[in-house]
């Protein structure tokens, strides 16, 4: 709820501006942001952004998915419940999903989570859906920057608790669905005690 002492912003023509009064941004606030990234696009775009030496905020922590279509409502909710300040899904460009419609399903689920968050009094802007191709390293960096700025403006997640790792909670909620970031060593190499 807006503080009653805060005046509603008014435009020059005297009409109320449909915008909540902005909270002051805490310059020391470094948000924790979980990104559910599709293996075929956003994850590769992140690699490319790295290869291109592009700068983007270190606030984002990625979880690789085989497709954003794997993402369910509960995965996003669990990340928020565990204290993530923001969560977004990054899937393929619409019409270019490797599994045809996974990214479209993901968008619907993200929108549903926005409704659920509004219902419990959390800003729906803390979750978002983005689309990009594997060739868009610059877009990956731009989205990461834009979303981080958005969350910095919103401030910390009001249900954040000390000692809870939102990234770990989100991975756990996914169970076996998250793809390992590094391939596990094969049994043969493990037994021999050395890799490759």
């Amino acid at each position: 709820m807006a503080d009653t002492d805060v005046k509603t912003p008014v435009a020059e023509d005297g009409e109320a501006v449909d915008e909540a009064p902005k909270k002051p941004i805490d310059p020391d606030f470094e948000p924790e942001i979980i990104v559910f990234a599709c293996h075929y696009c956003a994850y590769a775009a992140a690699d490319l952004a790295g290869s291109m030496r592009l700068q983007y905020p270190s606030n984002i922590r990625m979880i690789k998915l085989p497709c954003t279509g794997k993402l369910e409502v509960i995965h996003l909710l669990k990340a928020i419940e565990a204290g993530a300040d923001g969560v977004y899904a990054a899937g393929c460009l619409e019409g270019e999903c490797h599994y045809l419609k996974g990214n479209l399903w993901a968008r619907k689920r993200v929108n549903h989570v926005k409704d659920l968050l509004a219902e419990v009094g959390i800003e729906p802007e803390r979750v978002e859906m983005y689309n990009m191709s594997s060739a868009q390293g610059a877009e990956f960096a731009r989205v990461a920057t834009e979303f981080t700025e958005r969350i910095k403006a919103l401030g910390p997640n009001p249900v954040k608790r000390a000692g809870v790792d939102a990234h770990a909670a989100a991975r756990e909620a996914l169970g076996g669905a998250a793809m390992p970031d590094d391939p596990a060593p094969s049994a043969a190499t493990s037994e021999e005690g050395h890799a490759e």
Partner: protein
Amino acid sequence: MITAERKPLDEILELVGDKKKVLVAGCDTCVAICLTGGEKEAEILAAELRIKAEQDGREVEVEHTAAIRQCEWEYLDMIADKVEQADVVLSMACGIGIQSLAEKFAPKLVMPAVNTNMLGMPQEHAVWLERCVACGECRIGLTGGICPVVRCSKSLMNGPCGGSHDGLCEVTGPEKEEIECAWALIWERLKAQGREELMFTDRPPKDWSKSSSGGPRKMVREEAKPV
């Protein structure tokens, strides 16, 4: 199948009141199929309640579980431990499941988290249409397989009223969507079956005492009762 819709969160919070240990109990049969009250949805509601409690600074423990079928005693045994530990159980099953849970664990506080709304047919993914009201005396053998009790806005049993125009009912649905006139559909179906004469045959009045108007119903199959 039986369909249900989740209640608004404010209503659910009111039902929970100041109870500290809350169990959200889903049912993995009908309400799971209609994407309202299965284990997945129970987990989502539990997460929402925890986030809301944290937001409001209330200390509440919220867990979730699901019975394969909440309307059968045996399946309720499987969730008994969790139910016993809760101060209040929010059931996401249909009205039958909620009452079974409340009866089995009486006087445990069991509250409905959903509104059971109809016996619906999944017309397409995520869309259900009412097709039966369990009136206890099925007449669709005379009406081309189309139920006038549920599909005619007035539940007329002997042909259309004056509100039927171009196959549509004068009444519109909750979202202002058009409703097809059941009796126009019946006429077309009977014509296609070559059974138009059924429109003009005398039918005995329907016995509504076999519906819910006749008090709570009971069915016993003697031949199937355990010996």
